């Protein structure tokens, strides 16, 4: 994608609202008396959810490598698995194989009948309130609610307000029209996965298609928080236990550098290789390159500016690497229409 096109979508995510017809997002509906028991069998997190609550977790293979990046969600007595994985057919099969002897449940692939329209941005909430009604303002981060045409999941992987609206396929065009039309006064941009991916990189969200391709485990990915420390029986728990006993010696760490880098470029400390680049992209907000590198112990800390990649300085950094505008926006007081202009011209 041309940089100026990337920039428009990027700036919309960072400053106003961006719309995406989200073809990457998948959703399974699990219903029945044992729906949550099924999820409890296969998820490494606890699935004791309040009505409307979502929790971000992973599904692990037997070697504790994640193959699905998911949210478990509760809407009354229905369970949803929302997220990113390669094949729903394979996932349903995997769940069936790993859920033990449970029978009172059914799984429906909602992508067969629904589409996802995603809104990301510091004023996405305001657009949603205008287009869908103010009830959406009552949704905390990581919550799900039935709303107008279908369901809305408040999540997002850009670090800004994010809403995934799940609509019946036959209504997708209609709702695309409604949202993009309401978005005109918000300087809404239609974006694609590249804009979203750059923002998720800056906020250190896990990407199954980037760092998820290297066979890394949750501690190496800095994703231990997605697992319950108290749960001992889930697919991959054996491997996790072994890993905890053995320890691990490398970790995905965020970096910044002034010049372009490529995936698999080696990272050096003085002349010693200490890691490799897993992903990188240009940050228009920081005006430099941001990326993730797999760095070995003990160099794997943030805040160290002593590394080189391609003979250029590489500095490890804490995440998120930007100060998301959404952190400073207050539903009660702020509005897109009374926002302040900033110096960069990024409004």
């Amino acid at each position, binding site marked *: 994608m041309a940089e100026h096109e990337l920039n428009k979508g990027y700036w919309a995510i960072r400053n106003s609202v961006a719309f995406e017809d989200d073809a990457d997002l998948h959703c399974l509906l699990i219903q029945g*008396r044992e729906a949550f028991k099924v999820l409890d069998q296969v998820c490494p997190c*606890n699935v*004791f*959810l*309040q*009505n*409307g609550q979502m929790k971000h977790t992973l599904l692990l293979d037997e070697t504790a490598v994640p193959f699905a990046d998911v949210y478990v969600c*509760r809407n*009354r*007595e229905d369970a949803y698995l929302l997220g990113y994985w390669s094949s729903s057919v394979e996932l349903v099969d995997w769940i069936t194989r790993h859920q033990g002897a449970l029978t009172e449940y059914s799984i429906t692939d909602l992508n067969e009948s629904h589409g996802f329209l995603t809104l990301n941005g510091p004023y996405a909430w305001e657009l949603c*309130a205008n287009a869908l009604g*103010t*009830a959406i*303002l*009552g*949704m*905390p981060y990581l919550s799900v*609610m039935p709303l107008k045409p279908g369901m809305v999941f408040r999540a997002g992987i850009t670090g800004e307000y994010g809403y995934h609206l799940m609509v019946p396929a036959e209504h997708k065009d209609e709702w695309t029209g409604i949202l993009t039309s309401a978005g005109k006064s918000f300087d809404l941009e239609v974006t694609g996965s590249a804009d979203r991916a750059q923002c998720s990189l800056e906020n250190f969200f896990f990407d199954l298609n980037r760092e998820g391709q290297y066979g890394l485990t949750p501690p190496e990915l800095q994703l231990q928080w997605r697992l*319950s420390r*108290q749960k001992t029986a889930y697919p991959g728990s054996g491997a996790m236990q072994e890993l905890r006993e053995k320890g691990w010696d490398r970790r995905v760490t965020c970096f910044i550098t002034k010049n372009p880098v490529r995936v698999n470029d080696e990272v050096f400390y003085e002349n010693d290789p200490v890691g490799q680049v897993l992903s990188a992209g240009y940050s228009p907000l920081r005006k430099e390159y941001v990326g993730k590198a797999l760095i070995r112990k003990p160099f794997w800390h943030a805040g160290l500016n002593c590394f080189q990649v391609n003979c250029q300085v590489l500095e490890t950094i804490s995440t998120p690497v930007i100060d998301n505008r959404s952190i400073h926006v*207050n*539903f*009660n*007081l*702020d*509005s897109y229409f009374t926002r302040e202009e900033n110096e960069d011209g990024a409004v």
Partner: protein
Amino acid sequence: MKIVISGMGAYCALGSSTKELWEGISQGICGIGPITRFDVTPFETKLGGMVPGGDNIESDEKRLLWYALEAAKEALKNANITDNRDVSLVLGTSNGIKRKKIDDISYGLAGELNLGGLVITVSTACTSSSHAIGFAADLLRRGSARMVLAGGADILTRDVFAGFYSLGLLSKTPCSPFSNSLGTTLGEGAAFLVMETEENAIRRGIHPQSVFFGYGISADAFHDTKPDQGGSGVGTAIKNALRDSHLQPGDIDYINAHGTGTAANDSAEWRGIQHALTDHALQLPVSSSKSFFGHAQGAAGALEAVTTLICMQHNVIPPTLNYNRPRSFSPNDPVASGLPRKHPVRYALSTNSGFGGVNSALVFGRKEAAHQPQKGAPRPISIVGYGINTDEEYISRFVPYDDLRSTDRPAKLLAGVVAMILDQAGIPIRSNECENIGLFVGQDHLSAESIDDLDNSIKERGINHLSAAAFTRLVINYPAGVSCRLFGLKGPLAAVAARPGNGMTALCLAADYLAWRDDTEFVIVASVDDQEPGEGKFAGAVGLLLQAGDGQSPVCLRGWSMSRNFDRAAEEALKMSGRSAGELPSSPVAASPARPDLCTVVDTIEGMKNTNQRLFHLQSERELNYMGIDIILERMD
């Protein structure tokens, strides 16, 4: 039967009577000012809605009693009551006096006034006195009381101020609900209504203008301090109040909102109002009287009810003071005029919400307003579960550690017995069924450990760095709120105390609620005691699950009654069960530090399996200054 309000009393930042309250409201005078009672130097906020002259009272205990007494005396005087023997008391207080039993204030007040009726304390944080008003109406409807002094009292202490401050909830300027500055201003005071049936009032020769129509209460089941942002709990309380009043959304002409001024409350409350009243909400004036006298904590519900009623009597509605620019997504008409507005009100709604996710809504009207009769016959009640839990860790079998992380022992004990009962009844946790389950808890003290945590944090870090976590646990309804959150219980939530037995009092109030209303199908009744386990002391929770309808289980609650006249308590309970006095021998129920009253009830139910006896009359131990409580259980199989 009409419930009328024959007298009112108020004692707050605007003055020491309803006359001074009205003068303040009618002139748009803000009673919020600098706090001088305790040192506010460590805080960036220095304001409170302080009772004039309150600083001069020498102790917190005397201060609380004084406020309550003055407001109560005014209400009784306005109601032309000179003999208090027929007057019961339902008093709401959020904090009472630190480290004392929460109902000490009620017995102190009842003693000073020589009240001869029931004495019941409600402690549900900031809805305490609105709950009190609702329960008072229930007592009158059931004939358990003839006249009731209903309301509440709370004082503002340094600890409470510091606790709210630590949570970032206080405004640096006088609170301006629904306006563009965020935060609340704490206050204090007392307010009471004298409530009785219209028939009783006429018999006494008085003709009150104000009528109480109904109430609704609910639980958010969301968070220990923050309201459910979707406003569903507020919405449910309002819907239940309308249902109790036999009214439609379009009948409401004005809302006196809880309107604390905080970001979390005001937005959630407005969403809840819209949820319940739909399009009609958009045309309604919605104001918050906290802008005049601050947030009087447990007394807020009664004080705001008095404000609403006084204004109705003058054909006006009170404004929201200190209003600058509207906050986004707030009421279209917050009555931001600075002065009361002429506005005819047939029916007014008064809403309140509190820590632990508790909500209340009261409906008042004018005498001329149409009235529907209450339900003719009560629904039968089955007891479908029961248990005793003395193991703090029992709850861990049902709930992951992370969800219990910041709770205390009473909360865990209560949650354990609730889990036990739900499991027994085959009701899955957080199921749709749980949304229709209420929880009434008899409890009269806080966790000593949590109080110690707070005090220790103040000693170690200073008052402005006290433990916010400990502070959130210091409301009597905290354990109940935790259980609602853990299990998804969204029905009516209450925490009550009364002597001789908190548990049996909760049982009678819950049974009244379940039998005579139809907005809830199940109520869990429990009591929790958190004494240091030691020789002869009980630390645990006891619970029963009541379900509306016959045939749900072999055990039924056939009759219940509370009265200061012990014979009357027994007679009424027996009459409900279709038996007459003397027909059924009674068994005593002691309530002691060793064994709470509900334990005996549970033991009796358990023992029913091993005896041919079908009817059981349980009677609280007759102590002279307290009420008699009688219940009749029947085995149906």
